[in-house]
């Protein structure tokens, strides 16, 4: 009996210590240990749009570089990437595991409009920061949540700018649109349609394609027959290459502006340089040819960790989200590392110029103040390379 009472007292003491000690132990958020931070990302590592895995490689290269240089405030960054093949059903399972099993601190630089659309409500409900997702679908960018920090302006805004581009650069009154039949393409269409009246432009053909479609010949024939004076191509690199090949085959010499997520050296590589000559592309970053030290650093980091990669803008998407996250973590050098504090710290980033994005200023609240990249620019493919191009209004 005596022993039992002692045992009970000991247990009570242990419990008391546990309770008193609990606030200190629980101070840090999920995924944070004394020497590491677990962050996660879903990526199309395989599948039809696996060329977008460049984004994951860009982010991963950055985090490897950070870790090799001692990590952030003594903690290594454990960047966990899982392949969702750009299939939203897979993304749902993966993100659920990230949150409930792995306890990831944040989801950083994941890719995809359709995959993100499938999980964004869940991520927000679980109060997990989503930083620099590669998506321009309106739903993912306008969600009223403090937890979401979109990478770039919406496809809706881009669609509006491309109509203006077609009118003011090409002088086109009739345009044809080729779009991917998913949230990214439909958001572009909505943006395009919203400003047609303002610019006096008419859409005379609007053709969709499935990401896995073998060819886009029927769409291009129809677009050519429509009498369009310019084409807006809301196309990823592989379908864009098929479009330019088909356009060349039909001898259709129509000016084209491609959305920014199709700007990749893969396009001329797959379609042939001649087929892409003179095509304009929207873009959101400085090119890898830029002499800016931030870009040159990114280029050398990528070459070190992914030597087989041919650097392009999509790698920079990954760098952007990863660098902003790292910067926020660096600024949280004392005190508890919590998700709430991460959001507050991100919202305090003002005129920060040390990343691949020329200037990062993140405001309070949610989108559009939370956008990491706010401005869009243009390039034209000429003589085997992308050259900067300034439309009249820039």
């Amino acid at each position, binding site marked *: 009996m005596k022993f039992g009472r002692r045992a009970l007292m000991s247990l009570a003491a242990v419990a008391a210590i546990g309770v008193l000690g609990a606030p200190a132990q629980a101070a840090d958020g999920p995924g944070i240990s004394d020497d590491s931070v677990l962050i996660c990302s879903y990526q199309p590592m395989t599948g039809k749009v696996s060329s977008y*895995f460049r984004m994951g490689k860009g982010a991963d290269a950055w985090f490897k570089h950070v870790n090799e240089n001692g990590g952030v405030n003594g903690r290594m960054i454990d960047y966990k990437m899982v392949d969702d093949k750009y299939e939203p059903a897979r993304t749902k399972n993966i993100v659920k595991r990230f949150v409930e099993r792995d306890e990831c601190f944040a989801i950083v630089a994941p890719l995809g409009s359709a995959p993100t659309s499938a999980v964004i409500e869940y991520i927000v409900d679980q109060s997990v920061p989503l930083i620099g997702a590669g998506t321009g679908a309106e739903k993912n960018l306008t969600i009223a949540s403090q937890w979401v920090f979109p990478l770039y302006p919406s496809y809706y805004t881009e669609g509006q700018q491309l109509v203006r581009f077609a009118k003011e650069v090409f002088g086109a009154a009739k345009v044809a649109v080729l779009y991917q*039949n998913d949230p990214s393409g439909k958001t572009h269409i909505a943006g395009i349609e919203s400003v047609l009246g303002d610019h006096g432009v008419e859409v005379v053909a609007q053709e969709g*394609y499935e990401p896995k479609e*073998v060819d886009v010949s*029927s769409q291009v*024939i129809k677009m050519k027959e429509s009498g369009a004076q310019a084409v807006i191509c809301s196309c990823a690199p*592989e379908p864009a290459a098929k479009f330019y090949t088909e356009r060349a*085959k*039909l001898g259709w010499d129509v000016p084209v502006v491609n959305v920014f997520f199709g700007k990749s050296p893969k396009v001329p590589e797959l379609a042939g340089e001649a087929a892409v000559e003179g095509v304009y592309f929207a873009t959101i970053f400085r090119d890898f040819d830029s002499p800016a030290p931030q870009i040159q650093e990114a280029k050398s980091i990528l070459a070190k960790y992914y030597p087989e990669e041919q650097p392009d803008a999509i790698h920079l998407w990954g760098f952007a989200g990863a660098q902003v996250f790292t910067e926020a973590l660096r600024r949280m050098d004392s005190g508890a590392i919590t998700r709430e504090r991460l959001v507050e710290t991100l919202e305090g980033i003002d005129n920060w110029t040390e990343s691949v994005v020329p200037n990062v200023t993140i405001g309070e609240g949610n989108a559009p103040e939370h956008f990491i990249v706010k401005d869009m620019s243009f390039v034209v493919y000429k003589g085997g390379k992308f050259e900067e191009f300034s439309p009249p209004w820039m």
Partner: protein
Amino acid sequence: MLGQQILSGLATGSLYALTAIAVVVVFRNTRTINLAQGDFAMIGAFLGIVFLKDWGLNYYVTILLVVACCIVLGFGVERIIMRPIANSDWLTLFTTTIGIYYILHGVAGLFWGRDTKAFPLTFDPTPVDILGAVISQGHLYNMGWALAIGAVLYAFFNFTKQGVAMRALTDDPEAAYMMGIPVRFIVLLTWGLAGFIAGFVGILIAPIIYVSPEMMDEVLVKGYVAAVFGGLYSIQGAVIGALLIGVAENLAGGYIGSHVKTATAFVMIVVLLAFRPQGLIGIQKRREI
């Protein structure tokens, strides 16, 4: 526009036809729906890049080497994986080919990466004008090859001893065995033939749809639908089915809307099977007895 849509549809249909032929050849001799058929071609396409780009070989030497490698791949799959389970039910055989599909996907990704690659040899981009409609030289080659391979296989199955033996095996495996037909050898030959066709398909399709581990997924699905459309036992039926599907997809996409284009093949197969369960060329009718 109509002529162009039809011609472009025939061009796409020829891609489906090349795969559909191989699906039929394997099925009629082994009762196996080979879901890895497209991946045989995918491996061939990657090997084509290695031989052309890395080894600097001539295009025609590359074709010979790729076809030889794919034949060996076909033999290997039969000897190592399919022969031990040859007497299993169709579902086991079918499921095993799904496994082979994933293995080949993984092997290709491991050796050559997941990224889409350009095939180093592209056809002359100058299109060919046919009655006012244009077609790329690459597609024209494919149409020619699809017809040529179909014709050669038709002749093989109808006019050669081995071909007739294969047909006998299809009709009644036990009787064929009793008649002294070397069943195991014929089955091995069938898988080699599947590799032979895949080698050509890989090299011919790669410049048009680009090279990646997933490059053949959609083509295989449409090729399989075309094979079923044609009756699964008939090479001519498979070719006709593939060309019809290619044209119908383009006409649906051009005149109804691009949103219905990819569903067209499946609507066609459902409608056809509802009215003609044995497919377009009704060899399968004998099963009704």
